[in-house]
């Protein structure tokens, strides 16, 4: 069987990201799984254990300052060389900002098709995408070259399948045009120990109804009790209640958790675009006519400043 290349998404704080485990799980149905790790020196050996647990039979490591010190371009160059060498059955990347950017450069370098935001990938390379605010399902195929597909987080349930990965160090040879954009600094902004928004199985979001930045503590409190991530509607972000990287919706993140809790969110179409495919949706809003109730499996019409504290107490009671 041909190899399937999975470009590993990892973070300093969390190690291998869940979307990587999902990609490894999908890749196993397409061919022999090879993970590609980009990072500073020693990045691959730190991740090898986890990658092996989910079926990574081989790990290609491209490490060092030439990779880590520049934006995206060197990774695409190394990946393009690898694709030419191993002729994989498919290349999978995370549907994240960087995953898509690498995929875009790779597609141009190889004059090859690409598909983004896939939630399913069949053995014949047909990808399923959910578009237009979750209203339309599209099945697409790459018709030129190898399928380059980015996978949206929370698309499949990762399942382990132990392997003992062999690590192959790749020689990193990148030209000057790949080193035009330097990464000077990486700054982590506080989100505590909460899970990553797009990967969380529970998301608790606040909207305009939360009223101010300080009140977002209420949203965070419920998220922490449920072990979830915090999200925010555009109205809340535009009003300065919460940072933009937590925005759910048309101009923010798309999430697809098991449970989505909408607090003080009216549910404009732009917000629904980012959360409509959540498995279960619950909402608290004082406006009984708010469109969010049209898609909520359970809705409470009421004041979130009364409902949420009571819910918190009730959860604590049940947890103790």
């Amino acid at each position: 069987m041909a190899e399937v290349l999975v470009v590993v998404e990892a973070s300093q704080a969390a190690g291998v990201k869940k979307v990587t485990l999902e990609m490894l799980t999908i890749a196993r149905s397409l061919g022999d799984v090879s993970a590609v790790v980009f990072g500073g020196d020693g990045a691959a050996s730190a991740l090898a254990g986890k990658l092996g647990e989910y079926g990574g039979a081989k790990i290609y490591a491209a490490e060092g300052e030439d990779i880590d010190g520049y934006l995206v371009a060197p990774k695409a160059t190394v990946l393009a060389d690898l694709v030419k060498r191993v002729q994989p059955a498919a290349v999978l990347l995370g549907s994240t900002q960087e995953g898509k950017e690498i995929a875009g450069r790779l597609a141009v370098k190889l004059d090859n098709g690409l598909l983004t935001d896939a939630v399913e990938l069949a053995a014949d390379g047909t990808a399923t995408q959910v578009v237009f605010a979750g209203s339309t399902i599209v099945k697409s195929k790459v018709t030129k070259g190898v399928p380059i597909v980015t996978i949206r987080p929370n698309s499949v349930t990762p399942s382990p399948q132990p392997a003992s990965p062999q690590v192959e160090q790749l020689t990193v040879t990148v030209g000057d045009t790949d080193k035009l954009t330097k990464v000077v600094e990486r700054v982590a902004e506080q989100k505590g120990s909460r899970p990553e928004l797009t990967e969380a199985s529970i998301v608790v979001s606040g909207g305009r109804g939360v009223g101010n930045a300080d009140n977002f503590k209420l949203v965070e409190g419920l998220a922490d009790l449920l072990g979830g991530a915090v999200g925010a509607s555009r109205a809340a972000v535009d009003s300065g209640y919460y940072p933009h990287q937590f925005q759910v919706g048309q101009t923010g993140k798309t999430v697809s958790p098991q449970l989505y809790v909408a607090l003080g969110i009216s549910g404009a179409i732009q917000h629904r675009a980012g959360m409509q495919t959540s498995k279960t949706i619950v909402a608290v809003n004082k406006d009984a006519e708010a469109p969010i109730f049209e898609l909520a499996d359970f809705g409470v019409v009421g004041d979130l400043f009364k409902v949420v504290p009571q819910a918190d107490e009730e959860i604590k009671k049940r947890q103790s």
Partner: protein
Amino acid sequence: MNIVVLVKQVPDSGAERALSATDNTVERGSANNVINEMDEYAIEEALKIKEAHGGEVTILTMGPDRATESIRKALSMGPDKAVHVTDEALHGSCAVATSKVLAAALGTLNADLVICGAESTDGRVQVMPHMLAERLGVAALTGARKLTVDGSTLTAERQTDEGYEVVTASTPAVVSVWDTINEPRYPSFKGIMAAKKKPVQTLSLSDLGVAADEVGFAGATSEVVSSSKRPPRSAGTKVIDEGDGGAKLVEFLASEKFV
């Protein structure tokens, strides 16, 4: 500084959108077509740079004839001129082919800086800035929530899931921006009137030296096999809080095994 802003006309994301029943492209005929929202932030950023450093701002759009409406709207915010790449053969173009055409058009414009929105609201593919940088051999600073121009040095705060990265490069470069970067201005009455007289140059594929079979359906590197409407969600239980709303909510969460 010579700045080109990429503007895409898209169907209004606040309304129902669909794929064409005949060829699975984005349905534009029946849609209310608008400037891709994120592009307005790109225009604003370009105008601010021009105001601070001098230069010229050009709008570049690829799209059907009706995209002219969006080009005039973009010009009413203040850019100097526009280039409209339009050709029937472009219908059905994939991202790879689109980047080929836009790169060819940029080749005629000699830009120091290309600014675009981080993504479009229709495709949300997010690949165009890096595809263009790859083709043009210039720097890309993408996902910017802040941009500083100091002579030919560009520094951006690139938003990431963890926080942000500070990235830096020299012009020429492609920069993409999120909607956190600024607050786009509203066109003034004077701006709207002036936009009607601003030059809009139309370019066809042959003007750009791109063959018709490299773009559109003929040159597509991917295809939509099928599309269908996703069944809409239906409303579930709705209760009015009568002092027990929080408890009822948790009861539901417990019944679904979330608590």
